[in-house]
């Protein structure tokens, strides 16, 4: 009878130990899970920031495209407004940039409404590509340049603008 009592107490201790071990494992598992999820969140946000920066860089590259870039003077990230106004009407370019959305916005001085050759510069936006199928359109700051003045007494005028783009070409 004594041996039976000793044996069951030992088993109890083993069981207690097992429960403690399991509880500890669950506790550390939970802590690791919380730590991992916090880290993953940080990583996700960092990835989102990096992607946004990449997208902005690519958008600036679009500004340097031959069809949009201002090449009359040495100017990086400058858009030729006159070329953009012409490009808007060109149907041959559909699908060329592999984008769903491409829009140039005048930030300062700002304006309202869609631009055309007739109403420019009394307008706010030049939408070159507009099709559905995108969630957000990141943007990058650019200069919007054109020639102003009369004949030889002219000058190049640049304003602050933003170029918005979305689509497969940026992914």
């Amino acid at each position, binding site marked *: 009878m004594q041996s039976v009592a000793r044996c069951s107490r030992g088993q109890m201790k083993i069981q207690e130990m097992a429960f403690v071990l399991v509880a500890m494992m669950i506790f550390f598992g939970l802590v690791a899970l919380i730590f991992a999820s916090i880290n993953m969140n940080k990583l996700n946000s960092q990835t989102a920031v990096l992607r946004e920066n990449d997208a902005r860089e*690519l958008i600036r590259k679009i500004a*340097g495209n031959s069809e949009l870039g201002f090449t*009359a003077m040495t100017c990086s990230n400058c858009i030729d407004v006159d070329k953009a106004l012409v490009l808007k009407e060109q149907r041959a370019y559909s699908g060329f940039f*592999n984008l769903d959305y491409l829009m140039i916005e005048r930030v300062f001085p700002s304006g309202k409404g869609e631009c055309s050759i007739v109403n420019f510069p009394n307008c706010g936006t030049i939408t070159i590509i507009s099709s559905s199928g995108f969630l957000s359109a990141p943007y990058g700051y650019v200069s919007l340049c054109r*020639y102003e*003045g009369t004949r030889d007494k002219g000058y190049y005028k640049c304003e602050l603008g933003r170029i918005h783009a979305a689509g497969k070409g940026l992914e």
Partner: protein
Amino acid sequence: MVIKNKEFQSRQATGYSLSLQIWTNENNRSKLRGIKPIWSNKKGVGFGFGWIFAIFVGGIIIFLAVYAVTNLVKTERQGQDVASAKEFGILLSPVETSLESGKLAPPIIFPSRSRVYNICRSEGNFGVQRLSVSSSMGIGDKYQEPEISTPFYNKYFFSPAVVEGKKFYAFSKPLNMPFKVADLVYIFGEDNYCLVSPPGEVEDELGKLMVNANVTGSISECALESVKICFGYSEPKCNVLVSFDSNSAERGIVTKNKQDVVYEGYALMYAAIFSDPELYECQIGRLMKRASSLSLIYGQKAEIVSARSDGCGSAFGESFAQYSKITSGINQSKMIGSILESSENLKEANDAISCKMF
């Protein structure tokens, strides 16, 4: 008493087992005597339905499993390769120039040895460049034939039709005719290049932009395995031969794979050196289509500027429209000489006015 009884029982059992062994040995001998060749056995081997069914179904299951795994690996590889091709194209975007005359990209390193396939099609408004990647794998074929490629409509990559390696290098140079048409991106693998007596300007530029190029005065100084590019003289050992025009090194003919292509300007010279002749000709067609469309844009821009600034830019008249017409008809490099005069005229007209178009 009990013990004695047990001993007796065990002895009895041993005696019985011995007698049984002797009997079986005798029985075996008689059995051995009775063994006949297998072909004389008329009964045959009996296979139950259960066995046949198990082998049949097992075979089908194993075949389907192997087929499914192979297909899964194949699809996975294809997916990875398509993503790699897309990434490869995107990674080459920063190499495009804005104000620079040439730009070197950091090397693109693949996780395993890979092949980059470069296909050009000149149909449509601007043609298309298709890139596909095939990475080497230990399972199945070393390189899988790419079935899906990534299209690029506004990029111009110059390389051999297939480039193999783990590390890929690229640099770019703008093509101005007379306005900037596009950035030409040159891609090459880990091969070593030997430039034999290049012109000073080419030596300076390629010396900076190509990390694996060696400039020498004689072909005998080139490494045995290197790609030998000879400038201005012919030698049987040359892999690529660049023959200059009598007036300028910026015009001439590049001979590669026993085919001649014509170049105009250093940007196209490098394009002809680094790409296959077929790809070069296709890209010329694409570039000329873009030059034609750009010319129309500049023509309309000239009208807008002229209207806004009391006629500045009106001197261009129909020049851009004519240039567009000429360039749209060019689909071979040997026709490129036909635009030189118009291009020069446009450049002169642009330089003469204050409201520059390009």
